[in-house]
């Protein structure tokens, strides 16, 4: 029943997309500035039916309607309601439906909100966006249909992977999807701009808000995924340079570069073709990432049961996208004149873009190199985290310095004398760095440079805040907060990395272990029956030998029955200054439990500063609305 409703809705959307493309191309030939009402109506139907189809799937999950294969494979009646709903997008087919939903929603919103812009440009955008919608809808229908039915209807489902049953991971995919799929609209807009000749400042203004929206959500989505990895995976880290993380980082670099150079296009009416390249590559990189992960070419923590046939379709579609966008681009490319002076804001923004491109290329090479080597020589390798750390981290030092200085310069040509101020702040940063060494202990030369650069950026941002309070220019606030957030992020990651304690050992119940300045008593274990899992809860008493502070930590081993899986839940005690992190595991029911104990300073601050980066984006969005 639901299966039929769902498929009919999807087919309806498919037909509507065709109709929209057709009527839009007819409307293209009619002069004037108003788009036909019919197109608005068709788009409204399209968005309604798409959202309805998604709700149909959600209802299937809520009611545990196992006549749908998708529900049968990914849900179970004993699962809490919240995770039944989250299960809708916790699998390949459901998430693809979400993907199509976001494509359609953005298509509609762009059509409705950008009414002040050129008609031809808007129609072309609509056409390209609907071609994308068609592509993914066909993929959904022939290869990954979430509404496929199963007969005879099973009594019980297979359940959702327990590691995905987590609040952070329930919201992580929708956030990332709004971020990544949101890029589609300015992919379409860039193509439309090339074809309709609607370029320069006006084009920048038309996509500005959409770029910001997707940047905010991408940033937030990556942070949430990272937080999840920290407390759920039990390694105590938050970034592993896992292929999937890299895949999410690639579009982020591109979009961050885009966000900055868009300012140049809007203010100075130059760099148009560079902006177009960034618009196109952001979405292409998003799709590439998805393709590599879903097809199983890259193996990683995300184990969507992978399927090569999926890969082939996405690869085909991807090549079509790249090929057509490149053709149109080179066909329309004209030489631009750049008139940049060294001491101007646009030069610094360009430098920011170089850095972003360098980071992007580095991560891309690290990610693709193993694939090429495997194909060419059949040698299996993986690129370890040290590669990314060695190449990227040293460059963060000049990057942060320029990030602090850049916004000080005005547009076109600046006469500000900032030399003494910079010298003064660098000295300040060096002194603060010496204090840290004095109180906490020494570290390598590179770390010194990183700390100094980070503190320099932080000090600069504080001065900017002071200035902001005086003259209250709203547009500056967002930038200050994001840049300050980045400085703090690097600073706290540095501190965290330098002064973390980590110890692995095996203990029997009742034993005591002394490590660094902590005494760890393994008091006892308890067994607790929960709705869909059984928990073995360890009770640990931690005594800090320096100040005799006693704390109790309770890590868990959870035994899920559907599907039968073990998960280890870390016990984390968060304080303002540090996190205590303890995981417990057990191998083949021996008397010994593996214990991993970590003390991680300023962990909370890493999250706070990362969230500040995203917050900056959201602040800018809210101001934009007020100004209009």
């Amino acid at each position: 029943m639901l299966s039929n409703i769902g498929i009919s809705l999807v087919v309806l959307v498919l037909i509507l997309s065709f109709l929209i493309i057709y009527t839009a191309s007819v409307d293209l030939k009619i002069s004037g500035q108003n788009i036909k009402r019919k197109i608005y109506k068709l788009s409204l139907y399209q968005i309604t039916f798409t959202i309805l189809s998604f709700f149909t799937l959600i209802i299937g999950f809520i009611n545990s309607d196992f006549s749908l294969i998708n529900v049968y494979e990914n849900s179970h009646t004993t699962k809490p309601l919240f995770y039944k709903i989250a299960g809708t997008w916790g699998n390949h087919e459901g998430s693809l439906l979400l993907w199509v939903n976001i494509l359609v929603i953005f298509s509609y919103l762009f059509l409705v909100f950008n009414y002040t812009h050129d008609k031809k440009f808007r129609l072309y955008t609509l056409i390209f966006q609907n071609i994308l919608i068609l592509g993914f809808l066909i993929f959904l229908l022939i290869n990954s249909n979430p509404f496929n039915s199963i007969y005879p209807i099973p009594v019980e489902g297979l359940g959702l992977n327990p590691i995905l049953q987590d609040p952070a991971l329930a919201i992580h995919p929708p956030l990332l999807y709004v971020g990544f799929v949101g890029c589609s609209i300015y992919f379409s807009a860039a193509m439309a701009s090339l074809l309709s000749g609607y370029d320069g400042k006006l084009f920048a203004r038309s996509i500005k808000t959409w770029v910001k929206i997707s940047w905010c959500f991408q940033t937030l989505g990556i942070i949430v995924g990272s937080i999840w990895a920290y407390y759920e995976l039990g390694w105590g880290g938050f970034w592993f340079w896992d292929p999937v993380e890299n895949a999410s980082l690639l579009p982020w670099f591109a979009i961050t570069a885009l966000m900055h150079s868009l300012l140049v296009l809007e203010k100075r009416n130059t760099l148009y073709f560079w902006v177009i390249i960034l618009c196109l590559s952001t979405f292409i990189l998003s799709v590439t990432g998805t393709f590599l992960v879903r097809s199983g070419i890259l193996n990683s923590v995300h184990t969507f049961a992978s399927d090569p046939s999926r890969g082939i379709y996405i690869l085909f579609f991807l090549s079509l996208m790249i090929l057509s966008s490149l053709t149109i681009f080179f066909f329309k490319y004209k030489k631009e004149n750049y008139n940049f002076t060294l001491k101007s804001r646009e030069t610094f923004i360009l430098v920011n873009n170089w850095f972003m491109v360098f980071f992007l290329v580095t991560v891309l090479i690290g990610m693709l190199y193993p694939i090429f080597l495997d194909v060419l020589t059949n040698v299996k390798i993986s690129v370890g985290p040290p590669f990314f750390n060695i190449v990227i981290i040293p460059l963060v030092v000049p990057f942060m310095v320029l990030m602090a200085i850049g916004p000080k310069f005005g547009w076109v040509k600046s006469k500000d004398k900032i030399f003494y101020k910079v010298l003064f702040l660098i000295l300040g940063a060096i002194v603060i760095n010496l204090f840290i060494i004095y109180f906490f202990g020494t570290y390598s030369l590179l770390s010194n440079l990183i700390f100094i650069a980070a503190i320099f950026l932080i000090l600069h941002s504080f001065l900017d805040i002071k200035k902001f309070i005086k003259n209250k220019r709203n547009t500056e606030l967002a930038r200050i907060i994001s840049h300050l957030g980045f400085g703090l992020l690097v600073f706290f990651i540095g501190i965290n990395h330098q002064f973390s304690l980590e110890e692995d050992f095996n203990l029997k119940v009742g034993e005591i272990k002394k490590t660094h300045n902590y005494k760890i008593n393994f008091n006892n274990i308890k067994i607790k029956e929960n709705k869909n899992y059984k928990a073995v809860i360890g009770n640990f008493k931690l005594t800090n030998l320096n100040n005799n502070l006693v704390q109790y930590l309770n890590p868990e081993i959870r035994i899920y029955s559907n599907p039968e899986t073990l998960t280890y839940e870390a016990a984390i005690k968060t304080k303002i200054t540090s996190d205590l992190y303890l995981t417990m595991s057990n191998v083949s029911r021996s008397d010994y439990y593996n214990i991993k104990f970590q003390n991680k300073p300023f962990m909370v601050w890493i999250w706070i500063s990362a969230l500040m980066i995203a917050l900056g984006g959201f602040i800018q969005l809210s101001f934009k609305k007020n100004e209009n």
Partner: protein
Amino acid sequence: MLTKKVKNRILFLSFIFLLSIASFFFIIKSLNKNILYFSSPSEIKKREDIPIGKVMRVGGMVKKGSIIVNQKNIQFIVTDFENEILISYSGTVPNLFAEGKGVVAEGRLRDKNFFVADRILAKHDENYMPPEIKEIIEKNVK
């Protein structure tokens, strides 16, 4: 004679060119330093030039009944149904680590029969198997 403007431009372009070449070499060089090779127990036995003491990955199945846990570490045997290797590891194991299941260990070889792991790689799905191991098993078990 070239004008000053053209001169500047040529200087600028060659600067950019050199910079990008330098950074590219920098990337490739650190890439070569930091790649981890993946080997099966059989490859370790057979190959002469296997590097002892360099970080690498070993994968296969955990042999049934081979896991020994004591106060300091965990020892187990990894097999590809042709050859086997003893692995020693101290630390928490991922939740899907079990006898008869696939495993990938990252660490260093002490000699051709003994491997000290720093990390056991986590896989989060009970049905999932790293492609490297799948290949080995398909080759050896028929």
